[in-house]
């Protein structure tokens, strides 16, 4: 299986590996992103299924997931079954991108299908892909300001007003749901006392 091959390759090169829910995550170092991605391509991962941008700015600490930098770009590589000798292996290499220098190399020369999704990550997160043939905004208008999927991009909501000056502020209501604040229902998130599982 190419998945085991990729895992062995990662262990040999000292790349952190994490397996969860049957998915193999690999944390590639940013400077050598292209080197490792090329190695995966040569290993037989012929199909790039997705490029996923994530902003880990508000991700809580204390979970088993630790994120060294604010942004992450997760690639989804498939060894396409039904084509050549593809065996259906799927790996999820990722690279962390610092907030100060949000630049990384494009993989469009390895997989042309990275063209649109990389543009999408550039559009919605503001990460610049070096070497991309046509890096323009894709979903938003060209003159749009900001990058809306960043966690600090405002939603532009207005609070719901009730009688006697009381109001519900949507952001603090949701903060309760996220377990950061008491919120409306006084629940801090996480498991409740006396809850059975």
């Amino acid at each position, binding site marked *: 299986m190419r998945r085991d091959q990729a895992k062995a390759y990662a262990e040999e090169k000292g790349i952190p590996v994490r397996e969860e829910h049957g998915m193999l995550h690999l944390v590639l170092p940013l400077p050598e992103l292209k080197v490792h991605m090329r190695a995966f391509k040569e290993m037989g991962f012929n199909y790039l299924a997705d490029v996923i941008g*994530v902003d880990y700015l508000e991700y809580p600490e204390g*979970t088993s997931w630790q994120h060294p930098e604010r942004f992450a770009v997760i690639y989804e590589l498939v060894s*396409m079954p039904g*084509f050549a000798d593809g065996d259906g292996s799927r790996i999820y290499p990722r690279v962390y991108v610092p907030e100060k220098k949000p630049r990384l190399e494009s993989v469009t020369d390895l997989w042309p299908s990275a*063209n*649109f999704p990389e543009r999408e990550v550039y559009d919605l997160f503001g990460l610049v892909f070096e070497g991309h043939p046509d890096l323009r905004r894709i*979903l938003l208008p060209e003159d749009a300001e900001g990058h809306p999927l960043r966690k600090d991009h405002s939603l532009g909501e207005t609070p719901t007003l009730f009688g006697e000056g009381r109001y519900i502020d949507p952001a603090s209501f949701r903060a309760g749901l996220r377990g950061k604040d008491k919120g409306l229902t006084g629940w801090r998130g996480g498991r409740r006392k006396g809850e059975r599982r």
Partner: protein
Amino acid sequence: MIPEPKELRTEEMLLNMGPQHPSTHGVLRLVVKLAGEEVLDVVPHIGYLHTGFEKTMENRTFHQNITFTPRMDYLHSFAHDLAYALSVEKLVGAEVPERARVIRVILNELSRIASHLIFVATGLLDLGALTPYFYAFRERETILDLFEWVTGQRFHHNYIRIGGLKEDLPEEFVPELKKFLDTFDYRVDDYQGLFVGSPIFEGRARGVGVISPEDAIAYGLTGGSLRASGVNYDVRKAYPYCGYETYDFEVPLGERGDTWDRMVVRLEEMRQSARIIRQALERLEPGPIRDPNPHFSFPPKALLSSSMEAVIFHFKLATEGFEVPPGEAYVPTESARGELGYYVIADGGSLPYRVKVRTPSFFNLQALPVAAKGHFFQDLVAILASFDPVLGDVDR
């Protein structure tokens, strides 16, 4: 007498097509570079239907998000509900009962048939064939009525819940569905007879917009458009979900990867979907339709009038939602357009931290310039239709 021009001046022309044009299947804008009638290059401009669902979903609870999922792909909307639920179920470790899995398969395949009927109807309409459109909509109407019966909605079903389904099938549903299936295969034969073999269709579709398997993979095609190029990749076979591995069905493949193949592959897929539904109907046994775990499944409605605890759980689920353990999950599924999946990141709260939708149309659209280069402008419309893009699926 008018003097003869000394030489004929020719130049390339940039033509803007869309975003408001019926044959673009939504609000797609193409900037086409033309030399006379020949297409030199196509640049798709998308985003006219961008609604920011991914951002919205980060700010709603896991159950509330089922409201948004079907609105992305409004033709095969059930697949989006299912793909989202599967990813979240993986994170919370829900066990979906057998009856719910079978009902999910039945409705998913029904929705796929409805989507393919639209594809055949509008695809042929773009080639100038008006008749199949009305026939296909007759069948589609039956399916939508069936959906309305089960879910209360024709398009945006909102029927799936994390860990199961909203409610059980109504009693009359199965006999009505059987009645529909009895005639359906003959109807597909009828549609096939309406255009396959017609010299006009052969001339417009055969050898037009050819994509080699290598190009198809490189440019990210999935679904029927990929299988038309001869690549045997169907998520239902490669990464089975909902018990698809136990159903007996075939994956129709094309040989040339042209518009003709992409049309006919989907016709055959409708027959296979009907075959899956027939098998699923035989397995439909009475049983529970939701995971009984009260921490993420709503209690049965009948309990609400008799059990205080059920009311409390219902209230908590409706106001706060349920918390999902930190983690990341992705489950690939097969929508009518290709591989569809939700990459869901949870942080331990009851709102998803990030939801990324891998929509097939978005990736399939990248192959359009490859397929259209060198063909006539009139064929561009047919090639575009044969990719079956849904712009809600592209822009999200």
